[in-house]
């Protein structure tokens, strides 16, 4: 394939290669094949909480981020055994309109592809050791969301709920 399924990178994200990596045929006997791919892109939004965003700077604790992504991939495989996931997150300085995270999930049927993709982005936001500093007109601020705890069952339930399962 060339494209790793899970990555943290400073390079621009290429959704096409993620999609290709989850929709290529497998050699598995009895594989029904891919019928649906759901994808998610997170972009740097022009406006956040009323502030005019100039840029975001993303930083990651890379080895732990990759382990968190592996964990998310395992959670997806447990719940949606026919789904295949690719998940890349970018770090460094990103300007408005640039893609910070790209996720592609394939599945024989669309319900699973949508749900697993939504679940994956929720889990990224919950447990990936990645932070963004927002530079806006008039200042800058570290954005802080969830306390990362992969074993927090309530957080995981919340992610399933948002995935509509």
């Amino acid at each position, binding site marked *: 394939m060339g494209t790793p399924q899970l990555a943290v990178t400073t390079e621009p994200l290429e959704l096409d290669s993620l999609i290709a990596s989850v929709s290529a045929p497998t050699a598995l006997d009895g594989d029904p094949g891919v019928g649906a791919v759901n994808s998610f892109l*997170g972009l740097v939004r022009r406006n956040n909480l009323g502030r005019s965003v100039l840029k975001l700077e*993303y*930083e*990651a*604790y890379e*080895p*732990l*981020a990759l*382990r*968190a992504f592996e964990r998310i991939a395992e959670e997806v495989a447990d719940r949606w055994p026919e789904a295949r996931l690719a998940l890349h*997150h970018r770090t460094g300085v990103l300007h408005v309109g640039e893609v*910070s*995270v790209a996720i592609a999930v394939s599945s024989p049927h669309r319900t699973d592809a949508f749900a697993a993709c939504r679940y994956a*982005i929720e889990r*990224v*936001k*919950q*447990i*990936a*050791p*990645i*932070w*963004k*500093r927002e530079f806006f007109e008039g200042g800058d601020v*570290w*954005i*802080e*969301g*969830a*306390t*990362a*705890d*992969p*074993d927090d069952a309530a957080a995981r339930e919340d992610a399933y709920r948002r995935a509509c399962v």
Partner: protein
Amino acid sequence: MRVTIRLFARLRDIVGAAELDRTTPDDATVQRVWHDLVAEFPDAAAYAGSVSVAVNAEYARMETTVRHGDDIAFLPPVSGG
């Protein structure tokens, strides 16, 4: 024993360093390392209720026992995506 402390995002800004080497008692827990860090950098106390920890690039708990040479990361609430 010696441990490496790794800090991220605003916690790194508070401490003024991404990495520190510190001495901690044998059989110390991560909690002890955190406690000593807050004693040294009081502004870090703001994260007492929200910090996550990792030991050697695996998520861990405050109760986890630390060993010589361990790499202990303190993580403010995350904001990826």
